[in-house]
């Protein structure tokens, strides 16, 4: 490859924020991809929607507050964020509870996002 080719990466984060390091790893990988000027989509579904809740403060458990990092996604060029409508609703949450305003998407719309991606990373 003579020059870095631009690809579309979609990251799916399905895990609650502080029970394991997977949500942080997913985020770090996405930020790395964005730094290399790749097209990045970021999808929150299942318990992953809990990462988006306002008022997180992980200092008490000596961890980085994921919600704060998520607020900077746009700054890093990750403007395409999606949240699974069903996952949000089944947890009694709405867009107003979240630190950012991802696109509210249903399963069919998410399938379209996946189909338009070169690589999907599912953490």
């Amino acid at each position, binding site marked *: 490859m003579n020059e870095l080719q631009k690809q579309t990466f979609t990251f799916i984060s399905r895990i609650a924020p502080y029970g394991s390091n997977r949500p942080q790893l997913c985020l770090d990988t996405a930020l790395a991809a964005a730094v290399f000027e790749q097209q990045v989509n970021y999808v929150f579904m*299942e318990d992953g929607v809990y990462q988006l809740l306002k008022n997180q403060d992980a200092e008490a458990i000596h961890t980085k507050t994921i919600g704060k990092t998520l607020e900077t996604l746009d700054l890093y060029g990750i403007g395409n964020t999606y949240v*699974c409508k069903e996952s949000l609703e089944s947890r009694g949450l709405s867009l107003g509870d979240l630190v950012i305003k991802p696109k509210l998407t249903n399963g069919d719309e*998410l399938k379209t996002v*996946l*189909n338009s*991606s*070169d690589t999907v990373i599912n953490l």
Partner: protein
Amino acid sequence: MSTLHTISKSPKSQLLSECLTLVDKGDGILFIEDGVYYCANSKVSDDFESDVTWYGLKEDLDARGLKLDDIKTIKIINYQIFVEMCEEFDKVISWF
């Protein structure tokens, strides 16, 4: 565009229902590692949708003593075919 989804945890994980949210017509779903226990539960496997192709990895089924002679909804494949499928599908999404 078709995708191969691999599922590698037992049914207790609910991974299949999470995965099905994003499975499209023509996709394949392959059970590997502890995911093969999905194949062993005929109550689950009888309901497998027909617009998706279902696979189970022979090596993992054998290791766990699971026999699927009477289950027609799942194609049994080995590592060799698994590798070929990774090439044939547009992409692989791993669920774990």
